[in-house]
Every structure is written in C-alpha cells, then in structure tokens.
C-alpha cells in the first residue's frame, strides 16, 4: 500500500482545470519528484494534497485512508507536512518561534522529546541555531528555506512536501539544500518534492513524474529520466 496515492485527481480554479485527472503514488521511504514548467500544476497539486485547495474530481489517499474531504489543519495531525512555495516564513516571528510553529499541532510527551526534535533540526541546519533569535523576515533566501524545511521537520512528518526549495537561491546554496533533502530522506522520511531544477532533483530522486499542462506525461526512475533525450531537451536545457 503506497503512503500517498492520488487517484485521477483534478483541481479547478473556477472553470479552468489546473490539474486534470492525475494519478501519482509515493511509497513509504521514497523520494519522489514532480517536475514541469511554470503553470504545469505542480504547486496546485501540492496545495491539494495539503488540503488548502479543494479537489474537483478523483481522490487523495494517505496511509490507506481517503483524506480528500479532510480539513487542511487535520491533515497535519496525520503527518502530511508541507514547506510551501515561497517558504512561508512568518516574518514577524523569530527563528525559534517559527520552528515552534512547526510543532504547533504536535503534542510532545516530554520536554526531552521536544528538545531532541529541535536538536535534530539544529544539527541539520547549524545556521538556524546561530540565528535563533533573529526575526524571520530579515533572513536571506537560503536561510529562510532552511527555516521552512526545519520548521516542517519539527512536526515529525510522515510525508514531507517540499515545494520548490531551490527557488531563487544561489547555486552553492541549492547544492547544500539538496544535500540536506537527501539526508532527511535517507534517515527515513518520505518526501514528495516539486522542482524546476530538474538536474538536481532527478539525480537524487527514486522516481519522478513530469507534469505538462495539468497532466502526467512521463514517469519513471529519476536517473532513467535524466538520461531520456526528450526530458533532456525539455527540462535540462540540453539540445
């Protein structure tokens, strides 16, 4: 049984269907990527999985349960955690407060459990510990992205949704972020990643889906897609 399964899912904005009957599965422990051009429906798909955007047809299954009608904030309780596009760092809160927001829906049994989770995030992102009393809005793009991912980890996700973590970042920082994403996945967290940076994403993914105008056009193993001439031409800027 897959951890996440989208069955013929459609999402409409008014009369315009942004996502048209896509079917996607993510198995426990996998790192799966959605790639595609702007407007292909990647972010819409992520919003639908988190429940911020209602679906117009099909269904969303998580851990064997139909969560299509479940409220967004309740999905968080089940372990569906998203670091949204544009990072969504709370600008007026400190780094530490932002991280605590990640654990908002979670009840820690002991203070030690809380501290261990926070410690793990600081281990992955030492920069966040250095900056923990800095206000979120004053941080650089790379630091904000680290904060967004770190915050999502505070919730102990069963499925971590990352929407364009490399957007607007310098190549060095992108490398660093992808390295950490791989590390998070290696330690057992299932990840669904949305990316425009196809090279990085495909080389690190177990599997990938390519979206075009709201439909899945290709799917396969990450490395296989990386070698596919059509994919190369369309997404890797190679003639």
């Amino acid at each position: 049984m897959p951890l996440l399964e989208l069955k013929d899912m459609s999402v409409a904005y008014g009369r315009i269907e942004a996502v048209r009957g896509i079917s996607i599965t993510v198995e426990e422990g996998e790192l799966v990527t959605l790639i595609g051009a702007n407007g292909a429906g990647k972010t819409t798909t992520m919003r639908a999985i988190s429940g911020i955007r209602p679906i117009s047809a099909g269904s969303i299954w998580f851990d064997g349960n139909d969560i299509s009608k479940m409220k967004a904030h309740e999905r968080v309780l089940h372990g569906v955690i998203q670091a949204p596009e544009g990072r969504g760092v709370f600008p007026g809160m400190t780094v530490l407060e932002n991280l605590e927001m990640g654990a908002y829906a979670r009840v820690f049994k002991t203070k030690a459990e809380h501290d261990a989770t926070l410690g793990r995030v600081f281990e992955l992102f030492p920069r966040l510990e250095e900056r923990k009393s800095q206000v979120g809005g004053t941080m650089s793009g790379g630091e904000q992205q680290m904060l967004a991912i770190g915050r999502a980890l505070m919730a102990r996700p069963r499925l971590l949704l990352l929407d364009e973590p490399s957007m607007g970042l310098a190549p060095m920082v992108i490398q660093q972020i992808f390295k950490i994403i791989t590390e998070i996945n290696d330690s057992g967290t299932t990840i669904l990643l949305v990316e425009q940076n196809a090279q990085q994403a495909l080389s690190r993914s177990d599997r990938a889906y390519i979206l075009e105008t709201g439909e899945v056009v290709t799917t396969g193993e990450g490395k296989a897609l990386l070698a596919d001439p059509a994919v190369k031409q369309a997404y890797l800027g190679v003639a």
Partner: protein
Amino acid sequence: MSVLAVAGGQLLADSVISFDLGALARNFWALTIDGLTYGAIYALVAVGYTLVYGVLRLINFAHSEIFMLGMFGQYATLMLLGFGPSGNAYSEGTMMTIVYLGIAMLGGMAVAGGAAVGLERVAYRPLRKRGAPSLVFLITAIGASFVIQEFVHFVLPKLTGGTLGGVNAQQPIRLVQASDVISFANTSISNIEIVIVVSALTLAFAADVFINRTKFGRGIRAVAQDPVTATLMGVSRERIIMLTFLIGGILAGAAALLYTLRVPSGILYSGGFILGIKAFCAAVLGGIGNLRGALLGGLLLGVMELYGQALFGTEWRDVVAFVLLILVLMFRPTGILGESLGRARA
C-alpha cells in the same frame, strides 16, 4: 470648566474656544492621572479591535456593544449578589469589596466574552463560509451593533421583567466610595483610580504575555501574518478566530466594570458607542493590528484628551481625541508602532 470661568483664559473665538496654558500647567499631574485611568480603559477595549483586525482584517464595529453588554453583565452579577442601586456607596469592608468587584468583573467578562464569540458565530462566520467581500463584513458589523443596542433597549426589559435594559439608564450600584489615598503637591490619587490603573495594566500585561509567549498566542500571530502557512502548520483558523473574539470580549468585559467604577452615571443601551469609537481611535493611533500599539494608543489618547480638555475647555474633549488621531495619521499612516500583530515584539 466653562470658558468664562477660566481665570486668565485667553479668548480665541467668542466664548467658543479658549486657550489656557495655565490650567494645564496647574493641574498637570491631576490631569495625567485622570487621563491614565481613562486611557487604561480605552486600552483594554482597543485590544479587541486590534486583535480581530489582525486576524480577519475586519473592523468589528459591534465591539462597542460587546463592551456595553459587559456593563450590563457586571450590573446583573451585582444584582444577583444582592446589591441594588442606592444613593450612598455600600461599605462592605475592603476585603469583601474586592471580592464582590472581582465576581462582578468575572460576570462582565463572561457576558462580553460569550457575546463576542456568539456575534462571531452568528454574524461573521456564515459570511466567511460564503466568501463575502470585506465591505459586507463591515456593513454586517454596523448592523450587528444596532441589533445588540436595540436588544438591550427593547427585548432585555421584557425578558427580565423591566429589571434590566430599557429606555432609561440603569441607576448605578456603587460599592466603592471614592476617597483620596495618595496626595502630593496639589494632586491626589483616589482608591478608584488605583484600582482601575492597576487592574487594567495587569490585564494588559497578561494579554501581552498570552499573545507573545504562549502557543495559542503564536497561533494568533501566525494567522495574522500568513493564514495559509498557519493552516499548513496545523493551526485551525476558525478556532483562532473564535479565540481572538473571546479574548477581545473578555477584556472589554473587564474594562466595562472598571468604567462603571470611574463613571458611575448609570448604564444605558447606547452607552458603549462613544467609548467604543475612542478605543477604536486608540487602536488606530497605536497601529491597528498591533497589540502593544493598542495599549500605548489607549493610554496616550486618554492623557492627551484631558490635556486638551484643560487647554481648550471641556466641550472640546472629544474633538481633541479625533484631531490627535488625524494629526498622527498624517505623519505616520500606520500608527505609532506600525501595523502587523506579528511585529508587536520589539
């Protein structure tokens, strides 16, 4: 303080407005203390406007009526405790007076807090579900304000057999006889003023700690700063909205009791209107959406109003409040401390 009675008063316009710097200088401390007691009450009510604005971007004009219901709530509580209107203040001893006032305050808080949550449920939530534009919320708020007033005006007396509400003002129940407890220079501070300022500042401090230091306070700030991301963190926006109305209502209910201590002129269905507008001014003055702004704006407005009253004459008091608001907004359109609930932390 009529214009003609002001010794040494300079006549600016024929018997309409005076300018008496001497009156301000002579009574400076008395005016400051008096202003702070009003200001503390404005501040508590202003928090309700500012929190709801922060979370919903809605000016809840019916908040002045929540305050008014708080006045009736504490009044009804005192009646249930066996008190009634009388010419002289009761003398129950210091300890018991504090206990009775505490119970009355809780009564006011319960009524106002409950009414605020009820208002949200009945008036605003259905509109949110239907995705109504913000103008509709505003009109609804004004409508709700009239509905609550007329409820106390016409319906409440029928429900209570004429005991509460109605056309005439409720005669005050006075538990505390004002007496001066501290004197210095030509200024004295009364027991009532101390009770008001201390209680209001304690509640304001508690509200500040709640918003800035607790999990639910963080939830409120998160919804104010970025509602979609807050939802992604597992925050129920609906629950946060309810909580916000509840806090605003509770503080308005507490302010209602303090207000009736200070201004024991009897309570009336229309008695929340002016105070509500002043508190709204205070919230805008400090920077609407900003909790500390509301507190600062309230205190500042209360004090400036009384300075203005001394300078220009009593009848200009309300004008001073609004002119001050306009002046501040001309130079700082987002208020003294700026907007955003989230930036409330320095």
